[in-house]
């Protein structure tokens, strides 16, 4: 079988939904800018060589509708011969896109693919703007429509995670993210965005462009006392709060995937390969345990154990599900040691749904490079009751 490798992996900064740096900017616009930034970093690859552009998006409508994949391809100046596709597996969409690209290249069906994710939570509500659950169905068997917050509360309640556990986890995520930004760790992977905002100047409405280059969701300094004051919006007396849940975020992230042969021809130094990818189903009302079933599945495929993995990115949809999954896999010690989410997670940096898989890929590959890690895992839970996990081997 052919080998498929990732040559570069980049992301936009995460912008807080509604208030942050990308709140006014269209998602297709910053999606296009990230792809252009990616190509600019690999000038040896000619645009007409890109065979396909696969974008993950959890709510592909509005500006991310109309097959966002082809729209970004055209907008980024790729040639007419480049195709485009949008994939949706909710929160793993971005990772799924990279997995699909890898599989196609390995099969010999394609040579060079741009794959990633793009989401605006500023412009499109969770569930989309015209959600239509099946009449009667949800009440008797509402699983597919259960709100994510309820699933987080279910996990905390069913597996006895305390409020303090969750708040500590949330606090640590923010602390790590703050330190990482201060140390300039994300600079390498971030494509600064020419974002815009609408303002009123001298009585006239104007569009102002500005550079957005740093994740803007981190809340630091913060204290456990502050966090303890927050109330759960999901369940009366519940434990998942704005302080220990992922933020609603806008963002885009893409990776350049190509056959190892082509990379060699072009004299490109590959970063990593997505060696294994698995998706596993679980109970919809406990969808957050997803990583705890997906990680063993992908390890089994690879014939590896967690001890063979140097670095992990567990998407922090909620502290309850992330912490549960980490504990279930016996990895809590390694979390505090810094092998897991070393630079903070979605609680601090945001979770732009369909973009997240590609965003975490950019984060983990650059971190792995920095620390000379050999293998790493990106994993996340998925609404509706799934988990996804991918093993990257560094090259």
């Amino acid at each position, binding site marked *: 079988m052919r080998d498929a490798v990732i040559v570069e992996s980049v992301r936009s900064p995460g912008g807080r939904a509604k208030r942050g740096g990308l709140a006014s900017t269209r998602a297709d616009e910053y999606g296009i800018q990230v792809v252009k930034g990616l190509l600019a970093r690999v000038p040896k690859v000619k645009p007409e060589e890109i065979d396909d552009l696969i974008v993950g998006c959890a709510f592909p409508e509005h500006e991310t509708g109309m097959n966002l994949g082809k729209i970004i391809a055209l907008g980024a100046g790729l040639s007419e011969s480049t195709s485009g596709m949008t994939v949706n597996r909710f929160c793993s969409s971005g990772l799924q896109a990279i997995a699909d690209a890898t599989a196609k290249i390995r099969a010999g069906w394609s040579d060079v693919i741009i794959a990633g994710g793009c989401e605006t939570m500023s412009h499109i509500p969770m569930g989309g703007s015209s*959600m*239509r659950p099946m009449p009667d169905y949800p009440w008797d068997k509402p699983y597919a429509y*259960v709100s994510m917050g309820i699933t987080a509360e279910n996990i905390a309640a069913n597996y006895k995670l305390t409020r303090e556990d969750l708040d500590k986890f949330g606090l640590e995520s923010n602390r790590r993210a703050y330190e990482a930004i201060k140390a300039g760790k994300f600079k390498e992977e971030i494509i600064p965005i020419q974002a815009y905002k609408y303002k009123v100047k001298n009585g006239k409405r104007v569009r102002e462009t500005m550079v957005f280059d740093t994740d803007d969701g981190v809340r630091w300094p913060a204290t456990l006392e502050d966090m303890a004051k927050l109330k759960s919006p999901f369940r*009366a007396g519940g434990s998942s709060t704005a302080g220990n849940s992922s933020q609603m975020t806008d963002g885009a992230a893409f990776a350049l995937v190509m056959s190892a042969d082509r990379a060699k021809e072009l004299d490109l130094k590959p970063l990593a390969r997505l060696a294994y990818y698995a998706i596993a189903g679980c109970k919809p009302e406990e969808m957050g345990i997803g990583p705890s079933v997906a990680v063993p599945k992908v390890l089994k495929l690879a014939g590896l154990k967690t001890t063979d993995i140097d670095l992990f990115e567990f998407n922090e949809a909620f502290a309850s599900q992330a912490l549960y999954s980490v504990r279930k896999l016996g990895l809590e010690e390694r979390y505090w040691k810094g092998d897991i989410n070393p630079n903070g997670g979605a609680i601090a940096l945001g979770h732009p749904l369909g973009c997240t898989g590609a965003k975490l890929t950019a984060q983990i590959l650059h971190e792995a490079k920095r620390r000379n890690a050999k293998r790493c895992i990106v994993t996340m839970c998925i609404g509706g009751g799934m988990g996804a996990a991918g093993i990257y081997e560094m090259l």
Partner: protein
Amino acid sequence: MSYEIKKVAVLGAGVMGATIAAHLTNAGIECCLLDIIPFELTEADKKKGLTEKSPAWRNRFAENGLAGAIKSKPSAFYNKKNASMIKTGNFEDNLNMLADVDLVIEVVIENLKIKQDLFAKVEKIVRDTCIVTTNTSGIPIKDISAKFSPKLKERFLGMHFFNPPRYMKLLEIIPGEKTKKAVVDYMVKFCESVLGKGVVVCKDRPNFIGNRIGSFDMSNAAHVMFSKGLKIEELDAIISKPLGRPSSAVFGTIDLVGLDTGFHVSKNLYDAVPDDEMREYFKPNELIQKMIENKWLGNKAGQGYYKRTKDEKGKKIKLVLDYKKMEYVVPTKPKFESIEAAKKTEGGFADKLKVLFNGTDLAAEVAREYLCNNFIYAANRVPEISDTIIGIDNAMKWGYNHQLGPFETWDAVGVKEAVQVMKKLKLKVPKKIEDMLKAGHKSFYVKKKDGKYYYNFAKKGYVKLEENPKIILLPSLKERKKIVKSNPGATLTDIGDGVACLEFHTKMNAIEENLTIMLAESCDIVEKDFVGMVVANHATNFSVGANIFFVLDAAQKKQWDLIGKGIEALQNANMRMKYLAKPVVTAPAGMALGGGCEMAMHGARCQPHGETYIGLVEVGVGLIPAGGGVKELMVRCTEGIPGGAVEDGMNLQQIYVKVFQNIAMAKVSTSAAEGMELGYIRKTDGISLSRDQHIWDAKQVVLGLAKFYKKPRPAMIPVMGENFRGLIDAALYNMRQGNFVSDYDVHVSRKVAYIISGGDCAEGTWVSEQEILDLEKEAFISLLGEAKTHERIVHMLNTGKPLRN
């Protein structure tokens, strides 16, 4: 010269200034709100990068004042969006804003020099038609205007609002010696019709009328308490509801206002009225002095005469000050025989009061002494502070929420009877009262065939009360045989110019059979004999909804047919009103809940009073609106959709989710303006601020409509069909999982969702009004068969509060 107020400047952005500005916006008037520049730049300011040139710092006081008004509870604004009608600024940079205003209201600190200096600047900027006023409560108008040019003196007067300005009816207008009559007349009209206030024109005497009589009233109560050795809670149990006073009573009210404020008003008065025969009463007593030293200033300090706190179990409790020991204790629950006897007395408030006044226990003794002192003091103030008794009575009713003014109270207990008590108490009976009784005049007010008269001390006889043609009083029209038709539930009265008024008068204006019958009959009569109809009444509440006692009774007897017919009758009456060939204008005020809301929604137009609390609250008793409420809210929220939009795939989800939330969460507006936001009242309808002129306003709308009236075309409603049910089911599942709703809440909510969905149909279907009415009826009857709905109704009947079961 004629005046017209379109724009106002409020100078001083303290609590009063900012909330006066807020109320002006409630009346649709733009304002600027100015205050001084802060004294110095703080370290925190410097950290934020502010300098002495930053507008954010320079306008801080005005900005903070406005922010306080936005946050105030109860809300100063009808709709917080009104805040955008207020421009903030400061006295140094922005006085030029005054160049185009029509009215200036000065509300700065009570300091003569500061006021004079400010007005000197104001005089240079305002145009010569601008009316200039001060909201002072203690400084003579004469002194403030001493240095004014003669021209400005003609346009200057005192304009004294009571706190909170949105809610307190009293507004005192104090003309200066040189104020033009045209200015005074215009301002009275403006304050009444536009701001909705009750105006009392006062003389330029210390503390004017309200606070002069009010201060005495409070001091008098305290004196009686000390002399009789009563506890605070005992006095408050007597001088409150039993005497027609607000339930906050004497000391609760002082806590609310603030002891320091009360102290300053009294002290100011003591210094200003050296000849007042009761002057010593205004001298602050030892207790209040000690409390002020301790900073026990009332609610704002967390403690005053009362202290709200929590017991060991975390339960909220209210302690009272034991002023002998100066410590807070659990209040006793005083019970008085005479008060109990008064409560049980049949008849109106006057009858009950008489029983208490003539009682034999301590409470009666206190009431007698307190009231007689009040009577004498008020009588002695004519003509010193007011030429007539009416000014004093109105001031106390509108400014202090007394049910009756002192002279009306005196009438209630009997003028002669009270004088006998005074003599027994060795009080000095005013000569003018003795004269009045000697001349055979037995009361201060008398009703004659042509109207109401009051006793005028100067003329030593009765003078007819001036009637304001804009105040339509249904009882007085009834006396004049203007009743068209009446039954025990409602009355149709001819209010002139071809307009009839349908007035509800069941208990709390609850909707029951008689009322529905009368509505239907009124429609028939009006269509034939009138140009249109107003639906309004003078009660505190327009209507609190269906009489759930009858509904429960019928349900317990399983009289489903009867219930079905009752619903149909209400639906039909509402629909008849909506589609009448003559225009009907509903004029809700106070609460318009459930069935009351439905009726208010079914006129050709609605002309609500500003203080209208409207909503469909049926789910609180386990029911759904079945008189056309769901239907009409659906019509309201979709009627502006352009033709073809639904067919092109318009998403109705966000509209109907709001409709659903209104009903399923029993949302009630806190003002008519908010009722418009919720969709119960059309945004194109007018809002009346004057309760007195409310019916007149509604009548004018009828007359205007009547000129070219065509009844509306039957409405068709676009619905979301089964998809809406799916949407709400998913949302309800999550709310149930989150423990925010009970299983039965879900059950009732799903009924609401089914009605809104339009039944078993596809998204984008157009349904008729009748189809939705039928769904309402079906859901209503089905819920009445449920034990949990019965429990909710019983609980509401017993406690007045909704049950979550």
